[in-house]
């Protein structure tokens, strides 16, 4: 049995650099590191319409007899971030009278279903503009190309391998997320400190890039990464993993690739009777509250949910005409720090509400997002 474990282990280790290569691109890393520092263009205080270094393309506008129909092929509403984002989107629609109909199809996290959804929308012939939030990059590329032949397409969140869409709306990206958290740890701690890295699951590009960037910075600064564990985004598993690590040694910092289980990880320290170490979370309200209540040393990189608003704004510019950042609309990706924490904590919002939603000024706030 032991030999078998070793053999499988060696095999997996042998394979892993081959997978990692796609997600550890030094050029993209450098580009995003630069974009984090760049000043965004556009109206200040409204990051969802700002853009970083994008060229503008003049849209002629669609010549439509009546209001436009916008179709949205959504990868899924299967996690709290996407729930917040989709609420952003439906609320943003109220600001655009040029969009008369909005058709939403939910692929429930399945590539196959999303490809069929897009083909169905094309066959239906009702759509004037299509917004696509792809489930995975490679699988959805041909379907998006087919859609491009029929109508203007806006892609956001995850990308596709084609430049046929009018624009691709996204924040700086996964490397940027990883950089912000890891640089904070490096600033706070001495060389050789123990860092535990917690990840949701392997193989997802936006998460792999967060990890590879974080790992690169921690390794270069000489931090001792005691482990990189997958939590499946499960609170109980996260707490168990951290408890197990605490039984074996001290942890000076926890880096996470997503913050949904951050509070469970913090509780593992509390319940085992340890001080809470330096923490990298995300902009979920429960984490921000815990951070404030316990006076933690922490940072919250974000993957801003306001990009869901931007997708609708981009569609309206295609319909009405006007300037559109293209072929990419890169949105700023701020991290919440001790200095800005108070601006984002809001106990009236649900625990997994994403504070960087850019939704506070919207009409339906806070009820539409589940707040009271």
């Amino acid at each position: 049995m032991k030999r078998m474990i070793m053999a499988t282990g060696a095999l997996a280790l042998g394979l892993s650099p081959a997978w990692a290569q796609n997600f550890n691109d030094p050029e993209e890393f450098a580009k995003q590191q630069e974009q984090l520092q760049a000043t965004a263009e556009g109206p200040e205080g409204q990051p969802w319409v700002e853009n970083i270094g994008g060229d503008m393309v003049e849209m002629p506008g669609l010549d439509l007899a009546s209001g436009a129909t916008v179709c949205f092929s959504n990868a899924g509403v299967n996690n709290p971030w996407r729930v917040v984002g989709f609420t952003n989107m439906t609320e943003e629609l109220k600001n655009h009278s040029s969009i008369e109909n909005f058709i939403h199809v939910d692929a429930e996290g399945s590539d196959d279903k999303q490809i069929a959804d897009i083909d169905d929308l094309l066959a239906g012939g009702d759509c004037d503009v299509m917004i696509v939030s792809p489930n995975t990059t490679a699988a959805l590329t041909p379907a998006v190309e087919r859609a491009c032949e029929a109508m203007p397409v806006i892609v956001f969140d995850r990308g596709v391998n084609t430049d046929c869409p009018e624009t691709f709306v996204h924040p700086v990206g996964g490397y940027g997320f990883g950089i912000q958290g890891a640089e904070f740890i490096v600033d706070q701690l001495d060389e050789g400190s123990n860092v535990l890295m917690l990840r949701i699951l392997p193989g997802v590009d936006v998460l792999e890039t967060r990890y590879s960037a974080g790992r690169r910075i921690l390794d270069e600064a000489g931090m001792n990464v005691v482990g990189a564990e997958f939590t499946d985004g499960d609170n109980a598993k996260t707490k168990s993993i951290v408890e197990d690590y605490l039984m074996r040694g001290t942890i000076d910092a926890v880096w996470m690739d997503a913050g949904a289980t951050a509070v469970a990880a913090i509780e593992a320290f509390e319940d085992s009777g340890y001080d809470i170490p330096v923490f990298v979370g995300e902009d979920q309200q429960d984490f921000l509250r815990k951070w404030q209540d316990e006076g933690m040393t922490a940072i919250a990189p974000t993957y801003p949910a306001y990009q869901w608003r931007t997708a609708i704004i981009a569609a309206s510019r295609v319909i009405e005409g006007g300037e559109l950042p293209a072929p990419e609309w890169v949105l700023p990706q701020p991290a919440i720090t001790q200095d800005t924490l108070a601006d984002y904590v809001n106990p009236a919002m649900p625990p997994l509400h994403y504070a960087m939603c850019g939704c506070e000024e919207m009409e339906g706030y806070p009820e539409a997002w589940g707040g009271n």
Partner: protein
Amino acid sequence: MTDGADMQTARRLRLPQINPVWVLLAVLIGAIIFMNPGFTQPTGYMNFLKRAAPLAILAAGQVYVITSGGFDLSVGSLITLVVVGASMLTNNDPAATYWVVPLMLGMGLGVGLLNGLIVCFLRVPSLIATLGMMITLTGLAFMWSGGAPRGYLPDTFRFFGRELIRDVPLVRFIPISVIVLLVVVGLLAWLMHRTNLGRQVHAIGDNPVAAGLAGVPVNRVRITAFMLSGLSGAIAGILLGGFAGVSTDVGSGYELQAITAAVLGGAQLLGGRGSVPAAVGGALALTAIFTLLNFLGLPQPVRQVVQGLILIAAVALAMHRRQQTGT
């Protein structure tokens, strides 16, 4: 030489007396201690028991349904519904715990009752009936929460899954969930192995027609089995919500883990045979496998391969032993 042969026969006779799940558990615990001597400290084994408690309780309930000749796939989504529902109902009010906990237990019994009625009177096989219930409950939890948790669980509710009794002699501290585990498993074991209900559950799982002819109220016993499983699901949900807080997929996968634990403990999948303590042993062994693989620090894909292989091997061993003993 003769001595050796004698010992061999003696060993062959004696070995089947011990359920292999205990051997497996002992080996796994031994390996964990070897990897991490800290496990022999109270923090080590108490954390382990605390972590295993929800699955152990779930397995103890599941073994009733399995022994009666069915499956209960709805318990995982029931756990989710309990956690989501409790966070919605308590609405951050610590005082609400006192009526929300009984209500959740009642909901578990109610879901079990429904499962039982569907199986008994609509004649839907339990695999499909509880699969349908699983999907329905997942949908309900989603509708209730809107897809993301809407509230926190107050500390009074989390008491059962999170708090410890400190300053206990010998072991230093006891998690509340371990006490809950002992009480619930004690009761379920007593019901199964010391009362008429337990014998009837075995009887209808072995041969429902014969049991019916012998005067066993088949439907009533079957429904009771589902209700006990539902109740164990609600208790597991309360412990899990307490341990780790609210999330909308907290229960996913638990139904299969509970069935696996029961089978590891030697329960027969089509009924007629099952033991509560052994199912709890199966749950502890399953948790020990997860813990051991954590300690080994293997990459995730390798863990899954090893975990799958250990499971198949363990169940094969249980089957082999049954063949030998003829039970």
